[in-house]
Each structure stands twice: as C-alpha cells, then as structure tokens.
C-alpha cells in the first residue's frame, strides 16, 4: 500500500512539473480508465463484506435530511415522518426481532456535507440503509459514495429522472409519473384545453430536465414552438411582477396553462403576484410539481383556489389507509411536541418516505438478514399498501416505485381536491422516451442484465464480462 501511494504521489507531482507527457490527450485515458475499473472491481469486492452485522443488537438506520439551512423547511418533516415510521415498526416488534435504531445526521443543506455525512453513516455507523436527500444536487453528491461503499439509499422526492443506480431506490415520482399526466390533463377539455404553454421554473436541473421532456412531449402532440414559453428565475427570486405580466401578455386570447417548477421559497411571491394581478385558475391554470400541502401552509390560499398540483399522494385522499396514516402522524407530532403540532399536514414525499421504510423493513424481514446485497434483491419484489389506497410495487428492474398519479385543485383551506387520477399505479420511466439519447436506454438491475443505463445486457453469457 505504501509504495502504491508513493507512486501516485510522484506521478501527480510529475504531472504538475512535466506536463507534456501526461495522459492528458483524448486518446490516452483509455488505459488508466481500464485500470480504474479493475481497481474499482477489486475494491468493491473488498468492500463487499457488508457492515459487521452483529445479530442481536439494534439495526442502525441512517436518516440524512437537512435540519438546518435552506432545505430544512422541507426536509425536517421527512426526518420526523421517518422517525415515526421507525417507531411504529419498533412498536410492532422491529425487524428480524431486532429494534431499528435511527441515526439522524444534519447535512445542513450543504452538498459536500451530504457526501461526507453519507460516508460517515456507512463507514462509521455501519447503517443498513439510509433514507434521505431532497434536492437533486444532494442526491448527486451522495450517489458516488453509495456506489463506492455499496450502501443503500431510499430517495423519496419527485425528480427529473434520467438516473438509475444499483444502490438507490427511488420512491418519488419520475417525470412520467407526474409531469406528463398533468400536461395531458390540461390539454383535455376538462382541464381547459390549453393551446399555449408557459414552462416556468427555477434555474436548475430538475425544472430544466422536466421542461425539456415536456417540450419534446408537447411537440409530439403538435404544439408549435411559438406556443411554448420557457422562463427561468434564479433561486430565491422574489419579484414576479414582470414574469406574471409576461404570462398574461403571452396568454392573451388563447387558452393557456402554466407548468410551474418553481422551487421552494419563490412560490409564495409567485402565487401572491399571480393572485394580485388577477390571473384566475379558470383563465390560466397553473400546475405545480413542487407545491404540496406543506408548502401551502406558508401561503394564503384563498386567491389560489383552482390552481393545480400533480402528485402521487394528497392528504385529502379519502382512504382508510390514509386516515390511519394522518392520524398516526398527528398523534406523533403531538406526542413529540413538534412545532405547530395541531396543524401538521402530510404530503407526497412524506408518504414516499413512509412507503420506503415499510418496504425496506419487509424486504429485510423476507431476506432474513440486513445484508445489503440480500435486501436489495428482496426489495425489488415488494409491494406496500400505500396511504393513497393502492397496492404499490417496487420495480425490480429500474428501482423506481410504480405510482398512481393524482391531479388536484387547491382549495381555500390549503388542501387539495382531486380532479383526476390514474386507474392504477403506473410504471416509472427512469429514462425518458422523449429524450433521444435516453430513449435507447434500459434500466434493468435484474440478473443477468444488471445495468441501469445500458443499451444491451451487461452479461450476455454467464460469467463473460462483455460490456459494450
């Protein structure tokens, strides 16, 4: 090990001083890349003997949500709901007759810190699974860590798709489970028959990708380029006067719908401006993908009545499972004295967190171990009766949940009234068929395919490594 380190050090220094013969040119990296892969394989093998599972003590479960910083507003509830679910599972006897022990860390809305804390959870705490992340960037930050250390992450938030990892289970919606049904609804006569489209978002990857997919989708439905307006605002933008006026101008005279992927704190000023400039939902409906019950708590909803949101779960869904879920949550909030306990709401990512934990617990129970490789294999075939009233399966191939889609209008009391829903859960498309590069890709983590972003199987014949 020592000599290896020294050679690396020397060659790095060599690169600094004698730049010219470094493997910088396009062609050269091939060889080191191969060695990298070989090394990756060996180190993965070395890392494979998963956390020392001492069979009697509690099972450690990591919770990786920001409790401070800008994302605390959304993620704190997920931490709470995760703790609640774990408490319920423990009360029912735990998993494999062992208690679950949550390990809560605060990555403080700081992306490198997410990676650091993920590493800490896996390497130091030896957790069996991690539930966490909200933003795309936090997920991207921890992804290499989970892949390197062979960890297991449940990601509970709707996202832009275009990803599939052996080590991640996505319990939030992919674009085809949220954005596309919403647009289809708005196109229908019932939704207002929109002809013009305003794609409005915060300037980062989720809105960009979603809008890109929607752009392809709209064009495939015959909407001309000139009828689509795409606008982006910086993070934390709080002055929507000009944009709302532009939307009004753009929409004049034609049925128009706004698809909003505006993130976080910008929503309140946006909706307030919308209401004050007199854009009514019956004229120009706005459908949002990141506004749920939790976000509406901070908005005066009276002027927003009729605007839409598309999710896989709403608090107002009337099923016995949901009633129980809400009751459990309220009771938990009261028992733990959470701030504003009487007014706590449930929302989609909370439901996704809840489903994820239940699913993992079932899988571990079935696998009879917390060993990550075994549990991962088991999760792919689990189903959970979700609060939304459906039996939801995890897709063993692409590691995404099948989810029902609901479209709902905002009501004056900050809740949603479902106006449309799918008949059953629909399968996620990890790779969007609307993006040419992605359409060829197949996400399939089942043997013998075992690759989430390939165009042909990784293992064509048993034992032969024949990657493309």
């Amino acid at each position, binding site marked *: *090990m020592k000599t290896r380190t020294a050679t*690396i050090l020397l060659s790095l220094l060599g690169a600094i001083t004698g730049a010219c013969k470094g493997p910088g040119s396009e062609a050269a*990296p091939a060889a080191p*890349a191969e060695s990298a892969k070989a090394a990756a394989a060996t180190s993965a093998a070395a890392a494979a003997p998963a956390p020392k599972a001492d069979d009697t003590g509690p099972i450690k479960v990591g919770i990786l949500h920001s409790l401070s910083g800008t994302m605390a507003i959304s993620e704190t509830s997920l931490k709470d709901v995760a703790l609640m679910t774990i408490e319920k599972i423990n009360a029912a006897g735990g998993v494999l007759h062992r208690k679950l022990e949550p390990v809560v860390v605060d990555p403080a809305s700081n992306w*490198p810190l997410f*990676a650091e804390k993920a590493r800490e959870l896996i*390497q130091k705490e030896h957790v069996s699974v991690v539930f966490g992340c909200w933003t795309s960037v936090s997920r991207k930050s921890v992804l290499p860590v989970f892949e390197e250390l062979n960890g297991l992450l449940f990601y509970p938030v709707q996202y832009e798709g*275009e990803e599939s990892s052996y080590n991640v289970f996505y319990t939030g919606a992919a674009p085809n489970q949220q954005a596309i049904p919403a647009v289809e609804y708005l196109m229908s006569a019932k939704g207002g028959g929109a002809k013009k489209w305003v794609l409005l978002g915060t300037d980062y990857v989720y809105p960009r990708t979603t809008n890109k997919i929607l752009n392809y989708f709209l064009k495939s439905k015959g909407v001309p380029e000139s009828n689509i307006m795409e606008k982006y605002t910086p*993070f934390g933008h709080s002055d929507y006067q000009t944009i709302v006026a532009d939307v009004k101008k753009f929409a004049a005279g034609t049925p128009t719908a706004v698809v909003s992927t505006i993130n976080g704190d910008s929503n309140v000023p946006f909706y307030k401006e919308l209401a004050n400039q007199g854009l009514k939902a019956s004229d120009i409906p706005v459908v949002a993908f990141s506004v749920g019950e939790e976000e509406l708590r901070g908005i005066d909803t009276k002027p927003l009545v009729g605007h839409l949101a598309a999710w896989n779960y709403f608090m107002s869904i009337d099923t016995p499972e949901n009633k129980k879920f809400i009751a459990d949550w309220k009771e938990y909030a009261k028992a733990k004295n959470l701030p504003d306990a009487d007014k706590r709401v449930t929302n989609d990512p909370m439901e996704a967190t809840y489903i994820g934990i239940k699913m993992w617990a079932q899988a571990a129970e079935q696998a009879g171990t917390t060993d990550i490789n075994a549990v991962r294999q088991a999760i792919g075939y689990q189903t959970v009766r979700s609060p939304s009233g459906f039996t939801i399966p995890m897709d063993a191939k692409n590691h995404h949940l099948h989810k029902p889609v609901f479209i709902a209008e905002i009501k004056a009391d900050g809740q949603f009234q479902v106006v449309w829903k799918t008949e059953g859960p629909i399968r996620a498309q990890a790779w969007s068929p609307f993006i040419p590069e992605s359409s060829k890709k197949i996400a399939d983590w089942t043997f013998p395919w075992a690759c989430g972003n390939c165009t042909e199987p990784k293992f064509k014949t048993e034992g032969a490594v024949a990657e493309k």
Partner: protein
Amino acid sequence: MSAALTRLEPVLPKRGWAAFGAVALLSILLVPALNSLSPSSALHLPDYLVTLFGKFLCYATVAIAMDLLWGYAGILSLGHGVFFAIGGYAMGMCLMRAIGEAGVYRSKLPDFMVFLDWKELPWFWRPMDNFAFALVAALAVPGLLAYGFGFLAFRSRIRGVYFSIITQALTFAMMLLFFRNETGLGGNNGLTDFKQIYGYPLHAAGTKHALYMLSAAGLCAAFLICRFVTTSKAGRVLRSIRDQESRVMFLGYDPTRFKLFVYTLSAVICGFAGALYVPQVGIINPSELQPSNSIEMAIWVAVGGRGSLIGAPLGAFVVNGAKSWFTVALPNAWLYILGLLFVAVTLFFPRGLVGALSRIRK
C-alpha cells in the same frame, strides 16, 4: 552575498525549522499510516476520516491565504469563496473529462451536457482534458480574476468595509452566474460523479492517501510561502499599509501594487486549495460561492487568530471540526454554538485562540 547583506528576518528561526519539519512530516504521514493499520487495531483510523481531514487541510490552506490578506494587509475579502470555487471548478472540469465515456450516457460529453442537449464541448472545456493545463488553470484563473478585480478596486482606493461588501457582491454575482445552466458548468448540480484522477481511481485508498498527503504538503507549502512574504520587507510594507496607508504612500511605496500582489497571491493559494478539495469531496457546485461560505472563511481566521499564520489553520480545524461533531451530536444547537463562538471570539478573544493561548501562557 556579503555578510553585511542580511535578510530582514529569517523565514523561520533555526528551532522553528526543526519544529516545522517535524509537524509537517507528522501531518503528512500520520493519517495515512494510521488508516493503513488493520481495522481491528485500536489505532485504526476509519476511511471517512481520511477524506474529512483532507478536506480540513484544504480549508486550513484557505485560512492561511485569508490570514495573509486580512491579518497582514488588513484587507478583509468576503469573496474568497470565488477563488476557492474556481480552483475547484477547474479541477472538477478536468475530472469530469477524465470520466470519459464511463458516465451515465456513455457519451464523450459530460452527462449534464447530454442532459441539456448540447452537441459539442464549449470552448473553455476543451483544454481541460489536459491534467496539467487544468492544474495551471486552477491557479491562474483565480489569480487573473483577483488581479483584475483587485486592480479595479485598489486603484479606486476602495478599502475597509467597502472592499468587504463589494467582494461579497462579487461572490453573489458569481454564484448566480454559476447557477445558470447556460454558463456551461453544470448549473445547480455542479460537477460530480468523478471516477478517476490522472488515471487513478478516486475511491482507491492509495489515491485518497495521496490526495491527503498532497493537501498536507500543500498546507505546509502555503505556510512557508506566506511566512516568506510576511518576514520579508514586503511583509513589513503590508503591515504598514494596514496601519498607516497614507504614510506608506508618502514614503514612496505604491500601496496598490502591494495590495494587488497579496490579494492575487492569496487567491492563487485559494485556487490551489479548491483544486485539491474537489477530488476529495467529490462534488463542486455553486453553493461554494454563497456569501455565507466566504464569511465562514473569515470566521476561521478570526477564531484562530489574525496576523498569525499558525492561528488561521488552527481556526479552520477547530470550526470545521466543531461543525462535523455538533451537526451530529446536537443538530438543533449547532447554530447557537457557532453563533456564540463568533460573538465570544470578537468580544473576548480579539486575537483568537492563539492570542488566548499566549495570554494563558503568560
């Protein structure tokens, strides 16, 4: 060199060299050595701590650069995150290119470009294939930016809090710029999913040790460079500028040039630290450019003690160590602890930990 010609002050006193050598060697070797012990050993250092310490070393290097600027020249920049981030981005771009076709899309282009439907590499990405070029860029781009910005600012005699405030505006503007997807640097997600550096897999223990050792060596080098500057006549002029700028001018020195020099040097060191930081944490994105990050850098220096090159890195270690510890142990109280630390340091230990320690010793 005649005997009469003497350097004003030695870079380090004789015994200082011995101590420095010992500390440097220890800091470079100890962590990898402990990490290489068998995991069953009581002294074994878990892997995640190696990258954690590596990260701290990068922060400490930044702190030294800040201290050179603030503690010695009296220029408080609240925008040093810019230089750190640019250094990081230069390295990140190189690492991004090193992924080759192993990315998600199996494309020659970085994944986010495929995402955004870009067909070819923007011009400023092209030379980044070359590792040496990227390294040079990691130092040169922050240096040039600092030189340009500093030239404008110092020439107009912007100083004191005004300088602090416009550097804050600088980092804020840069943050907005880097957030944009059109800028071509990955937008909010930044650059991530690195696989290898200079052909070595990033997650291999050997690479990690090498990066750690480079960071430690870098910190030592930064210390020596800054020490060289501060003990030279130029260092004395800088301190004079801090205390009495007009007198320095009337003595015939051009303070603008001295400030520009030290500002640029400090930016280059930050760029260097950023370049080493990125492969160790595995991601660089615009949040590094948040004004609050740059303010925190100043906090490290203030906590450690200004005007002492030992205090600054110490402050970086203490604050970041506390952050790592308390965000796990007391997540809710963490901000209180950090806040109280700042207030206490400014009120009771204006010379920071080093000042407090030396007072205790007396």
